[in-house]
């Protein structure tokens, strides 16, 4: 790889990068050409991901990962579209897109690097920062209650909700792989320690546990609310946005049917 990695040593993003590189290799070993695995990233430390990946990428602007992903998927349903976003990126600046992408069950996978702070802009509070936490812009402690992103994804209609931990690369890699293979909006919240502004390594190492997926929506509400439960938390099936929209049109949908109905990755366009 040409680019030198510029994250702080000890950053959780290294684990996420490693996990995703494994996903690419795994898909490739199944016959998927790299060129079909497309990723978008937002602005933030997480936004560096594209530079470190040998696949088609789009490093877009702050908060706008999901519209780009949706536009890509609608233009070429044969592509496997995933995106990397920060908690600031997806839940502050991009919240409207997050809720709407889940609501329409667009067939993409979103990986949320949740470090509970703005990393790149040096440690201000975000939508997921715990109440009372002192940050650069909340010197007296965060006066707001944090948002639980997985809960928002669930109530907004996401059909695949998982939580991983940057410190458990093999579990995370499996979750990312399953998310990409999932038909519909897949959301993986990744607990990502930011060693510089929110070092949660010890806390997560002690507290995260692997949960069994919830059987029902009501159960899922409870499970995702527990912010340290990891693994696949809830999964359901629903017609995807692309299927609904494209099937009602006279646009080339042969390709999207092949891709979406049977998830066979062995033939390439």
């Amino acid at each position, binding site marked *: 790889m040409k*680019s030198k990695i510029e994250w702080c040593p000890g950053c959780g993003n290294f684990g996420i990068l490693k996990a995703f590189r494994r996903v690419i290799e795994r898909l490739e070993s199944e016959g998927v050409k790299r*060129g079909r695995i497309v990723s978008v990233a937002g602005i933030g430390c997480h936004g560096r991901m594209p530079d470190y990946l040998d696949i088609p990428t789009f490093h877009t602007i702050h908060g706008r990962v999901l*519209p780009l992903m949706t536009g*890509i998927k*609608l233009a070429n349903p044969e*592509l496997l579209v995933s995106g990397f976003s920060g908690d600031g990126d997806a839940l502050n600046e991009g919240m409207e897109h997050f809720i709407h992408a889940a609501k329409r069950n667009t067939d993409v996978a979103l990986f949320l690097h949740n470090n509970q702070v703005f990393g790149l802009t040096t440690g201000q509070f975000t939508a997921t920062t715990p109440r009372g936490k002192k940050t650069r812009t909340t010197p007296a402690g965060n006066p707001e209650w944090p948002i639980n992103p997985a809960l928002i994804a669930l109530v907004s209609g996401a059909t695949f909700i998982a939580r991983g931990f940057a410190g458990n690369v093999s579990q995370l890699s499996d979750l990312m792989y399953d998310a990409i293979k999932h038909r519909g909006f897949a959301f993986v919240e990744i607990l990502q320690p930011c060693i510089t502004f929110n070092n949660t390594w010890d806390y997560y190492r002690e507290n995260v546990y692997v949960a069994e997926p919830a059987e029902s929506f009501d159960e899922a509400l409870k499970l995702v609310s527990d912010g340290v439960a990891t693994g696949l938390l809830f999964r359901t099936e629903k017609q995807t946005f692309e299927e609904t929209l494209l099937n009602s049109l006279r646009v080339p949908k042969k390709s999207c049917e092949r891709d979406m109905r049977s998830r066979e990755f062995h033939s390439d366009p």
Partner: protein
Amino acid sequence: MDLNVCIVGAAGDGVKEAGELAAELFAHFGYSVFVYQEYQSIIRGGHNASIVRMSDREINSHRKYFDLMICLEDYAYELYRPYLRGDLIYDTKFKCGGIGIPMTEIIKEEQEPNIFRNAASLGALAAYLDIEFDILERIFSDRFGARAKDDITIAKAAYEYYRSRYDPKMRLEKIGRRKKLVSGAVAIAEGLISAGLTHFYAYPMTPASPILHYLIKKREIVAYQPESEIAAVGMAIGSAYAGKRSATGTSGGGFALMAESISLAGMAEIPLLVIEAQRTSPSTGMATYHGQEDLYFAMHPAHGEFPMAVACPYSVEEAFYLSAELMNIAWKYQIPAILLTDKNLVESYKTAEIERTNLIEEIEIVKSSEGEYMRYEVTESGISKYAVPPAIVKANSNEHDEFGITTDDASVRTQMHEKRMLKENLLREDIRDRAWKFFLKGKDTIVTWGSTFGPVYEVAEELGYRVAVPRYLRPFIKPGLAHAVVVEQNYTGQLAKLLEMHGVEVKRVNKWDGRPFTPDELRELLG
């Protein structure tokens, strides 16, 4: 022959549709027709007017004074009465002098809702013009198919009522083949399709919404209304990245929201077409009224320096060709392109010949690569070859190297920024000889832009002016003019200022009341 008919009523009275049908009727006789729709941001009530003008010569505007007014509500009558210089046809449910037709009684008898009075008004119009009823019947059938039955019954009753009490005022003769009626919105949409549009995303905003409404009905186009303008422009950029010709459309407020993404398209060199249909501003302004206040905003919509194209159609026909031209430019140069138009052009109807043909100028697109593709290769022209996945292509909003990898390196930045900027020079030469249109002969020149061309042209012809209209506003090509009268619909004279900056001595003629100029007003100002 030149007839200016105004149909007025409340929102919900079907005034707009009545205007379109009257226009169809005139077009049937081979006349040139222009329809200006005036309405308020109200769903029921208020006052709506459809001003339908027909002429035996080519027209692109309505007139201020009405030869005939068809009135469905008394308070609307009060509002529009000052402009009446001819006959009045009215619903006898209210009292005023003129040709009374018991429209409300007719629809009550047929047990139809109030909106059917628009059919009654057309019946009266046909009788007034001594038109065979069959012809009106055909106009209804063409529009509504089998559903036309009720309209026909009501129109017929009004027609017969008129004939039993009044004489026709004139006889409309056929002067040519039936002409087709097109709105500016449809012309734009068809132009985009002709240049290969397959994906359209837009959030509703007057007056751009009709473009979305039209494209959403096309089954070969992916058209969608996402959560906001920010999402719409993002989706358009995503689709273009994946290789599909896409566009979005909005008005000033929505365009403001798109600004950051236009800058993104500039940096990432993604072809992006945005339609900006101006209305009165600032802010929400008068949402359904006309204005030309966004010239500078469209020319410089976003942060940073990047090459861009801005073009402005001056007629419905031109809207078709320029939309196609601009889409091709967006792709050829891989830049954002803005079609700057206005309410009066987008929402007006006109008899125009527009045939959808293939106007696509193909560009070479790389679709596979061995390893990472050099998407931003530094070339002499500034244009690098476009590539789309499954080529391993990296697009980047950050400054980047030739592969699209983020960089802060001073020399790479210097070179890459220059590479992008070179493209605007290339584009300037490309459009140089089609950047302006000149019409007529005369000592003095009137310069105008957008739909204001319609009334200007008409008056210039009468008064002996030459007319100059910019098609392209960016890159801006200096016209060979020492002085000019500049007519536009804003307070400051935005085009006038631009010309001044290029050494042209100008006299400003402006209007900013939300209503498009009419030839009548311009005749007074320029005569």
